[in-house]
């Protein structure tokens, strides 16, 4: 079934965004409008307050001494000379901080190394001094004697019986974190260095594979990459005379971070205040505490506030990058190229600590192992493994980009092996209305085929092409997140203006603007009448923070609940004022209240209410966290490349990205997520890679860790298929993780189409392509 072109909305980048999808029920004032960022002017004029901008009297600078060894025993540390340096206010080693370890899934991370170091870059000692320069000079005066121990860097080697055990002692779990939605999860199963193993079965993959017409098996590898945010990890801790711990930190989930910090330092949650700050990019990487605990202990020891900013070297060598992964897929197909069974095994290299690795119960990583295809039988095994490398963390759809690269390459390889067009292969197997996902989940409003067709048509999939030009595609499906608690407060002032207080920062996605639009829509007012107040963790209700494409859904539901309550309260006030029953009150398109034959605007009503002590009026709202929504988003990417046969160089010429969407709350931020995600994916396909040598990261600056630049970006066309079903109240679907996950496979599939070279490891490099061409020539 193919949609007529006139039902498609196109956003053509060369001419700016041109898509508006205002459903008839919307006011036309807020949701669906290209509203400017509510924090935009503050950010471009430099007025926005980032953690690094906070200044306090007597503020000190903190720096850490880091381990040069991937695995070693600390024989001795001598800090005498560092302490004696003028301007140094406190020096700490592992001996000066409590023994408690911290983490989100399991508590295995020490504040400072205690007796052993487990990766190059691990914090061994810390200094707070009057200036960064003095602190750095002091670090050079610290003598550490190490006794090197055997180390292991690859996950596969770490699982061997002879491998050194990186955490021989028992590790404490965080209650609840090890519960599983699907399948069987075991923490620390009896395999060396394995943190967790998840096994998910649906149907009977073993029998289906045993009796299949054809079986294909391929293995893939995806490297670790950095989130690439502009603002480095930054924190500032001040301990008040009354003992209140004030924290300013670039963190995407202040309430959760506060909880982890409270547990780690043994201070009550309500004696810690995380203050609101702007965040200079997150992409998932700003969820851990990073230096916050060291900063706290330095501040405590010095009796003065301390700020710590990771420099770019520390970011690239000791941040919390995405996991590298190796993936093996074995798939059975029938004579019609229909997928019958997938057996998948994924090994994620977690690095030296598991405290902030993505919780394996989250959907990311295993839910995508059979793609958005009808696969009746699945057997999935996911392992997360300790190695003596940088501990990994979250990054934009944790697990999904690695796994989707494998799945979408694998499907393409099967199509080519069967002599089938890759688009047809995907059309034939894509889930459609009524189908279950490979894990047996229900989805509604599925339009995978329609989206593939719309993209293929705009791309010109079937058009003739010159030699050396290749075309490839890939797909990805994922619902918005509907997990975790969101609590908001709406206040309507005596001037009738509305303030939303929420606990989530805007990590740079434009979420505060979205929130303002959602509020405005409920009251049919323009966004200018809504104020966003990001509360600190004492003054705002609990908020689980930005992750898993959840904020628009969960905070959207919380806003809806608060707005409903407020409308009832306002209707009661209006009824009192207009002498009628609350049920007779209607809200007008201009945000006013009307009863039969009477009308009152909000400002007048609130002024009247204020005189009676009934304004300002505040209502709380919260969401009902559930599992993932049964509504989903689907994307099909198409890429065209040119390959130079003499050098192996791949040039990305053109991308078409087709999205099945619900209501687009803000076409500018929506398109921003699409373009930003695609550019991030171009980097991960073509150039980005954290490279290790003997366990140490050697891509230690941006001259060697290559992010794409404006000159590397291809022509882009966005196709939106509006009208897809979304989640309440405004039928929205997710976009934040839809653009970055699947694109790399579309590009490598295009390389194969161009020159017949199959790349099963990212990133693409000209040299690898040339090697492939050579191998081809010598085989011929």
């Amino acid at each position: 079934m193919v949609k007529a072109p006139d039902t498609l909305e196109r956003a053509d980048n060369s001419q700016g965004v041109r898509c508006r999808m205002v459903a008839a029920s919307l006011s036309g004032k807020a949701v669906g409008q290209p509203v400017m960022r509510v924090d935009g002017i503050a950010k471009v004029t430099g007025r926005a307050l980032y953690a690094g901008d906070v200044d306090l009297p007597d503020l000190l600078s903190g720096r850490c001494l880091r381990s040069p060894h991937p695995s070693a025993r600390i024989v001795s540390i001598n800090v005498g000379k560092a302490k004696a340096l003028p301007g140094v206010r406190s020096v700490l080693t592992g001996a000066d901080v409590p023994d408690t370890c911290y983490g989100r899934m399991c508590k295995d991370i020490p504040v400072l190394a205690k007796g052993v170091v487990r990766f190059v870059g691990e914090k061994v000692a810390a200094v707070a001094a009057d200036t960064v320069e003095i602190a750095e000079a002091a670090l050079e005066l610290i003598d550490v004697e190490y006794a090197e121990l055997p180390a292991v860097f690859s996950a596969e080697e770490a699982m061997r019986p002879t491998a050194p055990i990186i955490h021989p002692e028992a590790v404490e779990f965080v209650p609840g974190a090890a519960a599983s939605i699907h399948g069987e999860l075991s923490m620390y199963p009896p395999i060396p260095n394995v943190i967790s193993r998840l096994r998910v079965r649906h149907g009977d993959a073993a029998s289906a594979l045993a009796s299949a017409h054809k079986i294909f098996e391929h293995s893939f590898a995806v490297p670790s990459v950095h989130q690439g945010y502009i603002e480095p990890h930054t924190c500032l801790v001040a301990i008040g005379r009354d003992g209140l711990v004030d924290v300013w930190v670039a963190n995407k989930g202040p309430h959760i971070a506060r909880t982890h910090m409270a547990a780690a330092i043994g201070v009550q949650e309500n004696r810690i205040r995380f203050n609101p700050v702007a965040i200079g990019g997150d992409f998932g990487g700003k969820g851990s505490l990073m230096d916050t605990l060291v900063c706290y202990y330095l501040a405590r020891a010095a009796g003065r506030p301390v700020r710590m900013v990771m420099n770019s070297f520390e970011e690239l060598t000791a941040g919390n990058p995405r996991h590298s992964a190796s993936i093996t897929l074995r798939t059975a197909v029938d004579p019609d190229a229909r997928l019958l069974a997938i057996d998948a095994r994924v090994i994620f290299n977690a690095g030296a600590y598991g405290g902030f690795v993505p919780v394996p119960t989250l959907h990311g990583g295993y839910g995508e192992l059979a793609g958005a295809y009808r696969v009746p039988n699945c057997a999935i095994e996911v392992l997360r493994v300790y190695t003596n490398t940088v501990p990994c963390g979250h990054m934009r759809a944790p697990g999904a980009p690695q796994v989707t690269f494998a799945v979408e390459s694998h499907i393409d390889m099967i199509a080519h092996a069967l002599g089938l067009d890759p688009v047809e292969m995907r059309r034939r197997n894509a889930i459609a209305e009524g189908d279950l996902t490979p894990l047996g989940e229900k989805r509604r409003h599925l339009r995978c085929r329609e989206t593939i067709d719309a993209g293929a048509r705009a791309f010109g999939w079937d058009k003739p092409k010159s030699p050396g030009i290749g075309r490839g595609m890939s797909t990805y499906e994922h619902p918005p997140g509907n997990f975790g608690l969101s609590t908001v407060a709406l206040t309507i002032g005596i001037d009738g203006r509305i303030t939303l207080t929420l606990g989530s920062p805007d990590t740079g996605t434009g979420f505060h603007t979205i929130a303002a639009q959602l509020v405005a829509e409920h009251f049919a007012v323009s966004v200018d009448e809504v104020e966003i107040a990001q509360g600190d963790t004492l003054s705002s209700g609990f908020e689980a923070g930005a992750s898993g494409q959840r904020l628009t859904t969960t905070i959207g539901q919380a806003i809806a609940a608060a707005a409903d309550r407020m409308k009832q309260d306002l209707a009661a006030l209006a009824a009192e004022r207009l002498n009628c029953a609350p049920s007779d009150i209607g809200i007008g398109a201009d945000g006013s209240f009307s009863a039969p034959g009477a009308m009152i605007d909000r400002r007048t009503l609130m002024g009247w209410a204020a005189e009676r002590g009934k304004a300002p009026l505040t209502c709380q709202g919260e969401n009902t966290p559930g599992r993932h929504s049964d509504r989903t988003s689907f994307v099909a990417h198409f890429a065209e490349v040119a390959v130079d046969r003499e050098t192996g160089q791949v040039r990305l010429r053109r991308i078409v990205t087709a999205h099945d969407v619900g209501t687009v709350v803000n076409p500018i931020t929506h398109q921003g997520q699409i373009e930003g995600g695609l550019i991030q994916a171009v980097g991960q396909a073509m150039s980005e890679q954290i490279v290790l040598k003997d366990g140490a990261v050697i891509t230690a600056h941006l001259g060697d860790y290559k992010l794409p630049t404006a000159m590397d970006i291809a022509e882009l066309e966005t196709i939106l298929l509006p009208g897809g079903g979304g989640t309440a109240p405004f039928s929205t679907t997710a976009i934040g993780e839809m653009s970055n996950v699947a694109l790399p496979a579309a590009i490598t599939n295009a390389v194969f189409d161009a020159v017949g070279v199959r790349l099963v490891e990212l990133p693409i490099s000209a040299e690898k392509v040339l090697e492939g061409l050579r191998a081809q020539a010598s085989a011929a």
Partner: protein
Amino acid sequence: MVPFTYLEPASLDEALALLAEHGEDAKLIAGGTGLVNLMKQRLVRPDFVIGLRAIRALAGISEKDGLRIGALATIQSLEVSELVRRHAPLLAEACGHVATVRVRSMATLGGAMAHGDPNLDTPPALIAMDGQIVARTRRGERTIPVDRFFTGYFGTVLERDEIVTELLIPKQPAGSGTAFLKFLPATQDDYATVSVATRIALGADGTIREARVALGAAAMVPVRARMVEAALSGKASDEKTLGDAAPLVVDAIDPIADFRGSAEYKREMAVVHVRRALVEAAAKAKEAR
């Protein structure tokens, strides 16, 4: 970064005096794009940093028996200069390939030479144009051909107390064409995997009178491929002849393996790009005739 004292002499003599006075403890700074990175990585730790910016005599581009380029001329100014485009298009082209506009507007040509980094784009261009470096100490002045200026990885013939004052580009031979190729297979903002600058001058009969081939990112220093040049002298300028000479470049280079490719790959890419650059230069030379 380690603290240092910044000095800003107003004249060349003053700068030479300061350099002589502080010796090993001092470093000159021009655009700072190279030095500051080395200081941040603590590979260089000068107590005194001597800024050249205020020295008027080091600025400017003029035409006199070819081009005279002040050491402080920025890469950006060279990329867009009418004089450079007319008399040394190869240099303008190479400058256009240097990093980004932000780096180009800070980095200087004198700094690019004195830095001694074999991965830069401008040294091979200057070598292919028979460029020379004028350097001064308190004892006097000397002129050094660019292809004899570099001694090793980040090493040059400059003395500790010597300042690069000017770059000279002689009048380019009649009937010559040039080409600059920077091979960037990963991102467009990067140092070259290999870069090639060529100049071909054709005689009246259409044969090659003289060829120049220089490479960046191909060895510990920017190199000149004299074997290729010699093999082409007096030969026809057809693609076959040019292509047959290109493989001789491997004897002139000794690339190191890094994130931009293995040594073997870089050798192969040097051959491919020398051929392509020769073909392009020959075509331009034919047009110029």
